[in-house]
């Protein structure tokens, strides 16, 4: 293994890992406030991909050619916003339809899981019906694979820089939002102790709804970036969704920084394993790593809880 190879896979791992981290944040946020795994979150990601792709297509047509730097940035941000909006909307509807009615009826915990699974199955098949099951591509409006810089002979392309950069920006944004704003305070309060939070004047329903939307925004934006990076398809959410879920657990589910660390780590481990072993085993390595970490730290790397103390 050469240093160049190692760096190349590290870059790839960082790119994938930051996408995993963005999706994992959605799992972790919802887990924090509801103690539930939102199995339909992968569909939020998928909807984000479609939303972003449609907006770019509508604005630029199927083959737009390369845009100038300023325009490309503008469209990129627009696509990301569209993806985020689609993701956020999906998450909001999801909470409304598949979660809230159950919450009102005090359904057992596993009922939520099944309703989320049902919503997920419904959503991705419905998307497949509406927008065809063939893979589709976001029209390329800037030179996606332009090499930006070299590290020991390994190149990082423009899209990779964009993904890693914007993902980190969003993660910092979310971290600050949860730490400092009133909404963040509400989320943490509900995560720590929902009945007490309600007594303190936190509107639990609203907080939960907004938490879903927050996770949906990040997941949707990640979906658009994933679409730029590879393709958009009705079942594109499945594998990244599972990986991101694993990442959230790896970092300690319910813990925001844990999800970030877990996502990056999972992406890196997965790609490093490709150097030593064949790429076709990278999924196995990712899960084995997960099992090993959980055996020694049963609540993930950084531990649970969205609120600071348990």
């Amino acid at each position: 293994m050469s240093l160049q190879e190692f760096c190349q896979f590290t870059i790839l791992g960082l790119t994938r890992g930051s996408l995993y981290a963005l999706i994992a944040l959605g799992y972790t946020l919802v887990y924090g406030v509801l103690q539930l795994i939102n199995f339909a979150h992968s569909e939020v990601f998928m909807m984000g991909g479609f939303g972003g792709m449609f907006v770019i297509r509508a604005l630029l047509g199927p083959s737009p050619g390369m845009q100038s730097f300023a325009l490309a940035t503008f469209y990129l941000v627009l696509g990301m916003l569209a993806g985020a909006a689609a993701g956020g909307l999906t998450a909001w509807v999801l909470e409304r339809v598949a979660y809230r009615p159950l919450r009102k009826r005090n359904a057992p915990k596993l009922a939520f899981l099944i309703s989320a699974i049902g919503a997920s199955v419904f959503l991705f098949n419905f998307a497949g019906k509406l927008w065809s099951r063939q893979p589709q591509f976001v029209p390329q409006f800037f030179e996606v694979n332009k090499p930006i810089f070299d590290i020991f002979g390994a190149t990082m392309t423009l899209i990779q820089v964009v993904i890693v950069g914007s993902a980190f920006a969003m993660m910092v944004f979310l971290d600050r939002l949860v730490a400092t704003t009133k909404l963040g305070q509400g989320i943490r309060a509900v995560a720590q102790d929902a009945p007490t939070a309600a007594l303190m004047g936190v509107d639990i329903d609203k907080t939960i709804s907004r938490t879903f939307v927050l996770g949906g925004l990040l997941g949707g934006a990640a979906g658009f970036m994933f679409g730029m990076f590879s393709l958009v398809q009705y079942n594109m959410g499945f594998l990244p969704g599972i990986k991101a879920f694993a990442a959230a657990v790896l970092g300690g589910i319910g813990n925001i920084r844990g999800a970030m660390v877990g996502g990056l780590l999972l992406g890196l481990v997965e790609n490093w394993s490709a150097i030593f072993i064949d790429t076709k085993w990278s999924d196995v390595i990712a899960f084995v790593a997960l099992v090993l970490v959980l055996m020694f730290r049963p609540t993930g790397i950084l531990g649970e809880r969205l609120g600071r103390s348990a």
Partner: protein
Amino acid sequence: MNTNGTVRRRTGLWHNEDARRFVSLVATGVLIALLTGADGSQDDSLLAFRESLLSIRLPICVGLMVLLWAVFYVGQRRRISLSPAVTGAAFRQRLRQMPVVRWLLIVAVVGAALVLPPFLSGFWQTVLVNQVGIYVLLAAGLNVVVGWAGLLDLGYIAFFAIGAYTTAYFTGTLPIAPPFVVNPFVAIIFAVLACLVAGVLLGTPTLRLRGDYLAVVTLGFGEIVRIVALNGDDFTNGPRGATNIPHPSITLPFGVHFTVPGLDWKVDWDGSLRWGIDSLPYWYLLLVLTALVVFLLSRLEHSRVGRAWTAIREDEVAAQANGVRTVRLKLLAFAIGASTSGVAGVIYASKVGFISPDNFILQYSIFVLAYVIFGGMGSLTGVVLGAALLTALPEFLRDYVAAADRPTYLGAVLVLMMIFRPAGLVPAGRRKAEITAQQASDPPGSSVQQADQPEAGQPEAGPTASPAGAVGGGQ
């Protein structure tokens, strides 16, 4: 139950119960129009929307939904409330207490399962075996793990895969030669052993983990098994899988040969039972196996072991403090579930004759779990019924819906079911009692959550808040 103060404060249109229901029903109408409408295309992303929403379909669907709303609305204005005696709730209650009815039902179902299949078309016979029979067995096994012991297993299909691949191995259809080639019936023993070993191997390090962590680890295990099967070209034949797995057969040491003197009636049977392409014999085989499994499991349910599982599910620490050997019992649940799945794997492999890693994707684990919870977690009757219904449902849609769209309906059914009957089709007695107790004792302190309760009271939860009263308060 709704305090008037919180309801009266919110007077916007959106907080009006009827308006809200109207909006959601119209949205449902649009959704149905899209769902039954044209397929989308790769190039023209709005094609499906145009074709479905500009056709006559949209007004029909939305119109029907508005009609439905109007019926609700009028019903509520008039405050029509039927007494339980009229709606039949009391009658059903009385029926439920009669053991005779229960036995009659069981006899009727078993009788139908025995007598009806020969009259079905070949297609339905295949569905009965390949889908219904196999999944009922799988669901009964998973019910032990999830329903009784409360361990969320998302990689359950892995044991099914192990059972199927063990069969392929011992019938000599994998690239590696087995020490001896056996009949699939004998392979059941090896499959059960293999699944027990795999279950214990997976369980020993991981069963210490709590709920959701266990879920993700089992999910990982399921994926690992599938990927190993996919990548192991030398021993599992990779993506091509195993082909020509033989059908099982039994040759009894004795035959039946006799003639009835005087009558021209002769029985000449050499004592062999063979299964083949035909689905019907497999159906009876599965019926026997399922009956056996269900009988054994139902004996377990209320035994010492079953009660220990319940204790673990409800509160592991308390169970341990009371002397329940939690790790050992959890392992037992895992192993029992795994071996049931393994048996199903053997039957599936020899019935279909062909297995590949595509038969064992994560989605099937999730589907089995969905069947279990749909049927009523922890209730054997419910689980068997739920699996049978949900596996047959997509096939009923066969003539109307394209194959690829059928899961959409399954998804919708799951969501609706969980909203209106969260404890499942036939709730387990204990769980049902829990839910009713919870709803009855809903603390008034949670009025923030209760403030804009969108739906009317639960259909069967006895004296809950009168929906008419809540609506009246909002206006």
